[in-house]
């Protein structure tokens, strides 16, 4: 547990240092593309009073550099070939730096692989004095019963979702309130250690310092869900290249996250296999002519498949759009069914509001808004990420939901476990503080 504190706190300090310098990079390592945004923080110039200001604090930063490159060496959102991924990250970072005309040293990264797993954990302590202090919050967080999540896994997020003071539940911030027993509900997200370590190694090889890590499911949720959806409860489905992330939000906190290890690349490979064409051509055909609902018109619309094998017959093949849809649709249905399973496992049907927001590059496929309600339920909409200042037009699409969400995460992250100070009992080394407390209690 202490290791985790140290590593995460080190990243938080790095983030603080980066904000002081004013420039920070955002790196979204996806299966099909790697996006890098460079943010400039101008301080609290446009902020209103008391922390939350104009545009919920988004106006404090500005995107000054943006670059996207084709991802290499990433499968299912996990790094498969490190040198290739390192090169791809280098390409993206260098292009973004060139656009920003500045050098960035700190990077906040997100990824969607590593088979994220959610745990809801709870803890309870007695309040030491009459009012709840910061120390009590730290103690209650530390007292929560952490399940055995395995030695090969690492905690990525651990956010206190709900505080309960005696019989009052649903507290956002119990500090300063009067009560006897303080309880907390936490949401903890773990991912494979190897995935994180590979990513950290790649970033380190690019001479960058990691100032934070986030799950792709979480960050695409905070950018694609509007504020009332986050408050009332909604699920965000990020249809990515190699993995489809599912996150459920409630009261502005993520309470569940999972991922389906299927995505747009699988659709492309289905097309490539079905039509016997190269991968690049399949990708092109998918993005230009892809769809999910076939009509009579689509039977007559013939698509030049093309190839350059030298055989005239093979090079001049055509397929109808209906055939293409016939290849795409089963795979998308499979993905959405996987999402449905995730939501069922999370108990999404018990939520008060059952809004589902589809985002990510895969959500741009035409006809998804008619297919998805059949599988996921009626409240489905296609979501695009929030607009942030200075974002180029090319990067405002649904495929950039997690990159934009990461910007918001970088600007004002939610409180996590490690943002509270370590309770004094856990400090074996710093016994001076305990001695002070002993004096305070007995004199």
């Amino acid at each position, binding site marked *: 547990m202490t290791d985790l504190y140290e590593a995460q706190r080190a990243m938080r300090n790095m983030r603080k240092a980066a904000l002081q310098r004013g420039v920070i990079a955002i790196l979204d390592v996806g299966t099909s593309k790697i996006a890098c945004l460079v943010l400039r923080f101008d301080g609290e110039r446009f902020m209103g009073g008391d922390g939350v200001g104009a545009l919920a604090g988004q106006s404090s930063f500005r995107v000054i550099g943006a670059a996207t*490159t084709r991802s290499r060496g990433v499968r299912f959102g996990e790094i498969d070939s490190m040198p290739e991924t390192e*090169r*791809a990250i*280098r*390409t993206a*970072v*260098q292009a973004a*730096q*060139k656009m920003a*005309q*500045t*050098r960035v040293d700190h990077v906040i990264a997100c990824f969607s692989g590593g088979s994220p797993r959610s745990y809801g954990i709870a803890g309870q302590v007695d309040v030491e004095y009459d009012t709840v202090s910061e120390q009590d919050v730290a103690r209650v967080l530390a007292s929560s019963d952490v399940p055995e999540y395995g030695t090969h896994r690492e905690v990525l997020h651990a956010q206190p979702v709900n505080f309960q003071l005696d019989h009052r539940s649903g507290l956002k911030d119990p500090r300063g309130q009067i009560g006897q027993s303080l309880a907390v509900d936490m949401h903890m997200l773990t991912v494979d250690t190897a995935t994180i370590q590979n990513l950290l190694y790649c970033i380190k*090889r*690019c*001479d960058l310092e990691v100032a934070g890590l986030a799950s792709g499911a979480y960050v695409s949720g905070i950018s694609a869900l509007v504020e009332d959806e986050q408050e009332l409860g909604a699920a965000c489905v990020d249809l990515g290249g190699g993995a489809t992330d599912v996150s459920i939000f409630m009261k502005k906190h993520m309470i569940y996250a999972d991922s389906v290890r299927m995505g747009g690349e699988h659709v492309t490979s289905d097309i490539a296999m079905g039509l016997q064409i190269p991968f690049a051509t399949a990708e092109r055909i998918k993005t230009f002519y892809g769809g999910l609902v076939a009509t009579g018109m689509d039977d007559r619309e013939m698509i030049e498949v093309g190839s350059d094998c*030298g055989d005239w017959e093979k090079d001049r093949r055509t397929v109808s759009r209906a055939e293409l849809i016939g290849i795409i649709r089963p795979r998308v249905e499979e993905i959405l069914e996987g999402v449905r399973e995730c939501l069922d496992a999370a108990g999404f049907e018990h939520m008060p509001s059952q809004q589902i927001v589809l985002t990510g590059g895969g959500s741009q496929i035409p006809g998804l808004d008619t297919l998805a309600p059949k599988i996921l339920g009626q409240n489905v909409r296609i979501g695009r990420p929030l607009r942030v200042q200075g974002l180029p037009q090319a990067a405002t699409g649904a495929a950039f939901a997690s990159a934009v969400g990461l910007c918001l995460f970088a600007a004002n992250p939610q409180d996590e476990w490690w943002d509270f100070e370590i309770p004094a009992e856990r400090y074996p080394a710093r016994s001076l503080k305990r001695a002070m407390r002993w004096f305070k209690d007995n004199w």
Partner: protein
Amino acid sequence: MRPVDPIEFAKGPTAGGSARVSEAVARAIRARRGDTEAAPQRPRDPAPSRAAYRMNRLWLTPSFRFFLRRIAPMAAVAACVGLWFASEDNRTAFTDQIALWKSEIQNRPEFMVKLMAIDGASAPLAEDIREIAAVDFPISSFDLDLPEMLEQIEDLDAVASAGLHVRAGGILQIDITERTPAVIWRSSAGLEMLDAEGHRVAELPHRGDRPDLPLIAGEGAERAVVEALALLKSAGPLLPRMRGLVRVGERRWNVVLDRDQVIMLPEENPLGALAQVVALDQAKDLLGRDVASVDMRRPTRPTVRLTEAAQDELKRLRGVELGVSYR
């Protein structure tokens, strides 16, 4: 004979034949000849190499950028110059060359001064000036020390002010304003001409040389020339008869007329006293009478001294009046 590349014989696709087949044939021939075929071109990797990436980041570092663009060039130039100047020979060569260029430019005909022109000075004064400011022409105008020369010229008594400049055409122009003599001062050393401020202008051998100038005398007279000139101006009708002014005791003036008549003026307000005398003269013809001196030292009580003959005559007339005789 030049070795022939078999690919030259491969038919193009337009010439009736498959280019691919021809290429394959060419490749086979090349392999038989033992040529190693160039490696097939791999798709270009868009990723920057690690070194290129690092260099790029280094270049985007603001401090490094500033150093390389501003400081490094200056440092390089300074280092080159410093190294060159480190050698004694180079230093002397440099200074010699500078001096050579300087003299070449200074001795250009545009800057040469060929003659001197003096305006506003009388002939003897011009002689004096030429003697003092002796320059052997032609000379470069950079070598002329005009302020020094001006000082020397202005030191001459007869010069009130002088202006020096080098005129176009290489002429050293000297404009002189001469002092105009206003009075002649007779002192124990001889006759000297003074201007209106009492400054010496020149010596005068004979009084008769300048009969138009009034004469002053006495100790300290040269320091009160202004007052003397004011008196002379206000003397008006007395002027034809005036011989000169005499400074008495370095504090007051005597006006000496012909026939040895003297008007003694007071120390304070001599002009008023003189005006009083002039008025008396005009009303009563005072000075036309047998008067030796008019004493105005106490302006409220003018006193007249008669000559011997006039005194006798007065006594005689009084005796007739009283019926007595002093004889």
